[in-house]
Every structure is written in C-alpha cells, then in structure tokens.
C-alpha cells in the first residue's frame, strides 16, 4: 500500500517535494524499497514470521511460580513488600474506622462544611444531597469503604506524583528520563497490570491501592512539573535578586505560583483514582465497586446502578470541590476560610455526637429507596422494544450484525491479510508526517513488539476494533461538540449527562449493551464509544469556544453562514484541540478494550481477562504488554504537536 503511494509521488511535480510531509514519505518509500525485499527474502510469510517471535511462556510461568513459592519466606516480601502491604491495610482501616465513628451524620456534616468553606453554599448543599443519596440508596457502608480506600490511594498518588513532578520540574535531565515513563504510564490500560500486582500482594486492598497509585499518580507528576516550569520568569528573577536560597525559592515562589496546576493535578488524580475503584473490585477491593461487580454476576442492572450512582455522585462532588479550590487561585482566600477548619470540625463532632446519642450511627434501614426493580423493568422494556423488528430502521441487533459484517470484519481481515511489513510501513507513513521520526519509530517498534510477543493476529483484531470505535466516537463527538459549542443551553443540558457517562463504571452498562447488541465485537465497540465520547465532546466544544472571537466576528460581518463559519473559521482554528480530541479518543477507547473482552470482544481483551481469571501470567501479561504496545503505537500515531497534560480530560 505504501509503495503505491510512493510510486505516485515520484512522478509528482517537484513543488510537492517542498512539503515536509511529502519528503518524509519519499524517504520512507526509499527505505522500504531497500528493506522490504530483504525482509521478504529472509522471512517470507504473510503474517508475523515465527522466526521473529519470542516465547515468554516458560520464563513467565516460572516467575509466577517463584513468587507464589517464595511469597511467605523470601526477605524481599518479609521485609519490604509485606510492610508496604501492612501499611496500606493499617491506613485504610484507620480512615474507615474514623468514618464509621463519625457516623452518617458526622460525615455528611463534615463534607458539607468543607464544601461550603472551599466552594460556597450551592456546592455545600449539593454535597449534602449527594451523601444523603448514597445513604438512601442503601450504600452507606460501601461508600465509606470506597472513600477510605480512595483517601489513602489519593494521598499516596499525590505524594508520589509530587515527588516525580518536582524532580522533572527542577531538573532537565530527570525531565527527559521521566517523560517517556509518564507517557507510558498514561497509556497503560489499568487491567494490563492488575495481574502482576495481584500476584505479588494477593487479592484485596493493598493490591488495589497500589494499582490505583500507578494509574493516578502520572497526572499529578505531569501537572506539578508543568506548573514549576511555567512559573513567571520575572517573579523568579525578583526572588533571586532578593538572595533567596534554592529551597526558599521553591517553597515561597515556585510552588505557590504553580498552585493552579497542583490543584488541577489533584483533581485529575482523584478522578482517575475513583475510576480505578471499580476496576479494582475485580481484585477484591471491596466497597462500591464490589457491589457493582457482584450485581453483574446476577445480571441485575438495577442493583449495579444503585452502587454506580454513589460513584458518580462522589466523582461529581469531588470534581466540583477541587475545581472550585483551583479557581480561587490568585484571589485572596475568602475570610471564612480562616475559621473554616475549626468550624467544620466543631460541626462534625456535634453531628457525630448527636447521632450517637440518638442511636442513629448507622444509616437507618427504613430510609432506603429501592431503585433496582424499576430500573430493571425500564431496561427490559427498552431492550425488548429496540432489539429487533423496529419498523424502517431495524432493531439494534440488526445494526450490530451489519456493523460487524460490513465494518469490523473487512477491517480485521484487511489488517490481518496485509503482509506484516506492510502494516508496519503503513503505521510509519501515518505517524511520520504528523510527528517526528522519533514518534514514528516508537510507533513502529511498539507495533512490531506485539509480533515479537507472539500475539500479532489478536493485536490486529483488537486494533481493528479500536479503529472502528474511534471512528464512531469521532463522528459523534465532533457533531455533539460543535452543537455544544454553538448553543449555551445545549451545553448546560449536556454537562451532567457527560459527567454521568464519564464517571459511571463501565460494568453498569455492560448488560444493557449486550442486551441491545448481542454478544460479540459490536457491543465491545459500543461500550468503548460510550466511555470515550464525553472526553471528545468536551475537548471539541472547548477548542471551538476558544477560537478567537475577532476571527469569528470578521467572518460573520462578511456574511458567512453558520455552516461556513464552522467549516472555514472555527474548525481550522481549533485544529490543535481537535487533534487532542482524536488522541484522547484513541487512548480512552483502548482503555476499554479489556472491558470489551467481557462482552465477547475476544482478542487481547479476552486474553487479559483470561489471564487474570486463571492466574495465568503467561497469557495475561503478554496480552497486557501487547495492549500497552498498541496504546503506544496509537498514541504516537495521533500525537498532536502539543503534548497533552491530562489523561481523563
């Protein structure tokens, strides 16, 4: 395919050659002309040549056995990992007992008071309502377990992230070393590394907390570094001229100036930790995630939703509070913040004591609302009426069938049918014109690594699903994003919907997705689209809104129609944001690949789930590594010129 492009380029007029993209492609074609015949002569095979694979089954199985046999006796476990594990258990337990001792009244009072101090009366009322709703759904104790787990995970993530961020922000050399590490951590799908963590720590809270830290620390590190580097040069010079030591300079100038980034980092870390709380339920973390997961076992969407709503509420409340804290930067803290903490403490203690005296420490069982049955009825009604036989448009099952036959099958068979070197060339040809030779090389090597790991075919299967899901996500996301950017009322209506979709645990909508689309790759794609859509819509809308109003005004005064304004002014000017949306779409879709394995997506996602379920390190870890490699490839191929700063957006 790439050679065809090259042939047409050679006869193209020389003017084209002045464009850097064309030069890069030409160079690539020249390289390919030399390398491909060599490779073809040496390893003539359509699929990945078996001579170039490394079988890791033996070593990985031995490593797994070694850990299991030595976990109870080896010093590494007795004197280091065991203590880490115990420290996590002790801290989570301490927070949990504190929350239980405060009782529902105390916790609600404390959270409300805190929200009031940081963000004002409206958020305070919202916080109180959210916590009471958690109780009303009968989820008080699981909510407290999740909160305890989250508190510890977020604290550790912030500590680790800040340390890494300080290192990267203060030293150029460390920055160069850390950047690819953080990049990789950000594209790692969480499922991929659950297995090794479980093997070392066993199932339960310690493994869950550590997996969460790996997932949630990178945004904190990245934003800390960004904040430190972005500090106003003039202010720093002024501080220097006052003769401040390096430490004083850091503490009195650089960190305070980076406050906004630090708080944004905290916000992102909390969001990611919360999304991990559910995934961690697969390894026995308990709490709300476990309730969602157990409800899945009995195919009970209503019960899963009852546990999913508190997660959404927690996420929205924590997001708004930390965002509000970030917004106050630059302004003087409000006077009420001075007596905020003592006041909050006093209210909490009073509420807790009152609840204890009245014997109402636990959430009263009679105050719960059963939502499960109506929700299940609604889901059943919906799937019954949409599944098939809808006049004119056909049912969802038909759509899923057509999508599988007309889009997914040709895409997968096409990719798997291409010679391996052609696929690599294709990746290089896409990645190089967009980025640098480094990003192109990383992309090619990462994809080649899946072949070396011996999972070339399933990787391309997964890749075809990701590409299809990204295409659907982008079409829908850009359309909704444009609409949201142009209509304020629409955006206000959309915001809570996006919040819910972004934070609702994917396990909750797995069953409806299967009920609508049947088992297979189509529901996997649907689940991925649901998960990735909010981020794409948000980034698109934001990018379009930030387009220079003057340019838009000029276009309007020239009599451009709204469609022309969008096409010829807004979209070109918002190009960086749109590229970022593409990149985010790709990374987020890939994060759901494993979830797709749970609804019949097969390929790498199924292998990763299989590895976790069977304790099979060889299958699971290789699949996880291949998912990471795919992630790197896709991330580099869609790498926009400006590096993104956050994963969840």
């Amino acid at each position, binding site marked *: 395919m790439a050679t065809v492009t090259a042939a047409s380029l050679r006869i193209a007029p020389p003017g084209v050659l002045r464009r850097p993209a064309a030069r890069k492609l030409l160079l690539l074609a020249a390289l390919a002309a030399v390398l491909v015949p060599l490779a073809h002569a040496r390893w003539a095979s359509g699929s990945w040549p078996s001579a170039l694979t490394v079988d890791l089954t033996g070593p990985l199985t031995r490593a797994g056995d070694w850990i299991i046999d030595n976990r109870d006796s080896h010093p590494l476990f007795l004197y280091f990992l065991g203590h880490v594990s115990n420290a996590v258990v002790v801290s989570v337990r301490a927070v949990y007992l504190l929350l239980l001792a405060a009782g529902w009244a105390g916790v609600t009072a404390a959270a409300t008071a805190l929200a009031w101090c940081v963000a004002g009366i409206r958020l305070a009322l919202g916080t109180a309502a959210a916590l009471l709703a958690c109780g009303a759904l009968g989820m008080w104790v699981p909510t407290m377990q999740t909160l305890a787990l989250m508190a510890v995970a977020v604290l550790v993530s912030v500590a680790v992230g800040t340390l890494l961020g300080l290192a990267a922000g203060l030293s150029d050399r460390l920055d160069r070393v850390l950047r690819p590490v953080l990049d990789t951590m950000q594209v790692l799908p969480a499922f991929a590394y659950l297995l090794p963590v479980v093997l070392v720590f066993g199932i*339960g809270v310690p493994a869950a907390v550590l997996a969460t830290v790996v997932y949630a620390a990178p945004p904190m590190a990245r934003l800390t570094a960004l904040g430190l580097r972005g500090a106003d040069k003039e202010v720093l010079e002024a501080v220097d001229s006052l003769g401040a030591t390096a430490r004083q300079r850091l503490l009195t100038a650089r960190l305070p100036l980076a406050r906004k980034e630090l708080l944004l980092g905290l916000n992102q870390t909390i969001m990611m930790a919360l999304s991990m709380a559910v995934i961690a339920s697969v390894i026995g973390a308990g709490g709300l995630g476990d309730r969602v*997961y157990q409800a899945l076992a009995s195919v009970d969407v209503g019960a899963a939703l009852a546990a999913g709503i508190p997660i959404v509420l927690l996420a929205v409340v924590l997001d708004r509070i930390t965002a509000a804290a970030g917004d106050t930067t630059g302004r003087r803290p409000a006077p009420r913040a001075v007596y905020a903490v003592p006041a909050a403490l006093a209210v909490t203690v009073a509420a807790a004591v009152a609840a204890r005296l009245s014997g109402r420490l636990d959430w009263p069982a009679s105050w719960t609302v059963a939502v499960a049955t109506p929700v299940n009825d609604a889901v059943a009604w919906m799937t019954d009426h949409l*599944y098939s036989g809808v006049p004119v448009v056909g049912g969802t099952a038909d759509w*899923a069938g057509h999508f599988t036959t007309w889009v997914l099958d040709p895409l997968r068979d096409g990719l798997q049918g291409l010679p391996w070197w052609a696929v690599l060339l294709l990746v290089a040809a896409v990645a190089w014109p967009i980025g640098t030779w480094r990003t192109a090389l990383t992309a090619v090597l990462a994809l080649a690594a899946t072949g070396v790991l011996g999972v070339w075919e399933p990787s391309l299967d997964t890749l075809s699903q990701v590409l299809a899901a990204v295409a659907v996500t982008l079409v829908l996301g850009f359309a909704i994003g444009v609409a949201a950017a142009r209509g304020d009322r629409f955006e206000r209506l959309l915001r809570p919907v996006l919040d819910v979709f972004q934070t609702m645990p994917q396990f909750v909508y797995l069953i409806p997705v299967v009920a609508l689309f*049947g*088992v*297979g790759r189509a529901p996997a794609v649907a689940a991925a689209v649901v998960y990735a859509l909010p981020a794409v819509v948000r980034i698109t809308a934001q990018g379009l809104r930030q387009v220079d109003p003057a340019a838009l005004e000029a276009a309007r005064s020239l009599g451009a129609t709204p469609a022309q304004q969008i096409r010829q002014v807004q979209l070109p000017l918002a190009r960086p944001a749109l590229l970022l949306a593409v990149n985010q779409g790709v990374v987020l879709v890939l994060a759901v690949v494993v979830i797709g394995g*749970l609804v019949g997506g097969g390929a790498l*996602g199924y292998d990763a*789930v299989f590895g976790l379920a069977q304790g099979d390190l060889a299958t699971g870890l290789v699949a996880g590594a291949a998912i990471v490699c795919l992630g790197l490839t896709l991330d580099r191929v869609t790498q926009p010129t400006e590096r993104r700063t956050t994963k969840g957006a």
Partner: protein
Amino acid sequence: MRARLTALTGTLLLLTGCGAADMTKQASPFADARGARTVTLSVQSWVGAQANVAVAQYLLESELGYRVDTVQVDEVPAWDALSQGRVDAILEDWGHPDQEKRYVHDKKTIARGGGLGVTGHIGWYVPAYFAKQHPDVTDWKNLDRYADEMRTPESGGKGQLLDGSPSYVTNDKALVKNLDLDYQVVFAGSEAAQITQITRFAKEKKPFLTYWYAPQWLFEKVPMTEVRLPAYEEGCDADPAKVACAYPHTPLQKYLNADFARNGGDAAAFLKKFRWTTEDQNEVSLMIADQKLTPREAAEKWADRHASTWKAWLP
C-alpha cells in the same frame, strides 16, 4: 533523594513494627470493624456460589453471631487468596487439581472442607423449544446439520457455540476441533453477557448452542436440553489438546484456609457441616437472580422454610 527514600522506608518500618511482615496474615481492613468476630467468604461470579454464600452468611450472622464479609474473586485467584488467609473459605469448587496439589498437598495452607452436597455438570445445551422441533439435534453427530441455523455475525460462516466466562473450565475449542464440527467457539467473556444473550435468543425463540452447566437457575427460565457428546471415561480429558469426550459429573467441594479450619471455632465447624441439595441451591439462586431479591432476603426465606436442614449444621 536517596536519603529521603531511606528515611521514608525507615519511618514505614517504625510505623509497621520492625521485623518480618507475615504475608500469610493479611486480613481485609474492613473486617472486624466493630469488634465482632468476622468470617470472610469468597464469592465466585455465578449465582449458585452466591446462593451458598448468602445462606452461610445469613446463618453465621443470625444464629452464631458472626460478622461476614464477602469478596468477589475468580476461582483460581480465590485459591491463592485462601492460602494467604485473605478469605477463610471457598464453598463451591468445581475441581482444580493443580491448585489442590500445590496448596493442599505441598504447602498445606488450605484444608478440605468436605462436599457441598451438590453435583455439578458441564455440557452443551440447546433450548428445549428447538430440541422439541428437531429431536435429533441432541446428538453431537447431527450438530453439523444445524450449523447454518446457529450462525451469527461473530461465528465466521460456521455455527456458533457460545462459551462463557474465561474463568470457567472448558475444553470446547479442542472438542470442536477433535470432533470435526462445523462450529466456531465464541467467548461471551462473562457469565453475565452469556446469560443476557441466552435470554435474548429465548425471547425470540431462536435456535442456539451454548456451553452451560448444572445446577443453574437459568434452566427454570429458559428450559434447555443437553446435547449428547461422546461418553466421559476416566482420564479421557487428561490431555487438553486431545479431548474428544463429554465433561464429567463433579461433586462440588468446599475448601477452608488451614489455620481457619483448625482455629476457626464455631464458624469453621459450621462451614464444614454445611451440606445441601441441588434443589435447595436452585431455590435460593432463582430468588436472587430472577426475582431480584437481595441475597440476604433470599437466604432468609429459604431458612424459614428449611429449618430442619440447617439446624443440623449448627455446632
């Protein structure tokens, strides 16, 4: 940086008490929250396992005064968790000879807890409405004749054999190959997805072929007929690649953490005596999965009706 790290490790050591940490004693931080005696039970993802745990939990709490924590884990990781003491018992095991050798015989960290009283069986099933119309479909030799009707977009031109969760024991890929059937195994990836798909098919009265197992509550909602595979003989499934016979009938077993089995007091004694029938389990499963009762409500209802059964389990 290094100094800080050392200091951090030092503080950590001080906080947790110096010396060796025992990785085999790792309880959940949520256990014993209010000073009650706690038992932690592992729940596997199928509803039968939930039913065992629900009844055991209800009786342990209401009759013996324990607090019961449950953890959802897949089967193989559950064995690992059991050996580490993160959970105290598995109430329904479908046979894991490798794990049994490693933990029960070699490491002695897990002890047998006796039979559950329920016999499990895995097989291939077609819906009863289809078997009634085409009685010959229940013999594997005639399956190819119906491959066309079992086709889906996922099965690549062949008939679809629907398989379930990756955690379940299955020889289906080898079976299809060795019996030379015109079928493609499609993995639903989770039992939830598989059940959802089966009920969908049943609502539309469509034919399907699925991997399924008894005892299972879904039979009450979607009656299914087993397809006869070549008969099972001892050892015919020894080589996973060469299997060409049916699945065995497995008396399901209970396993306890070895320490817990010795020092678990009333709770351990109770769990060892816990033994009921397939009908009992199905009764509870159906209440949970179909009537959407909470496991606790279902267990309470069952316990009200069957006092004589569970009175015998009390120590």
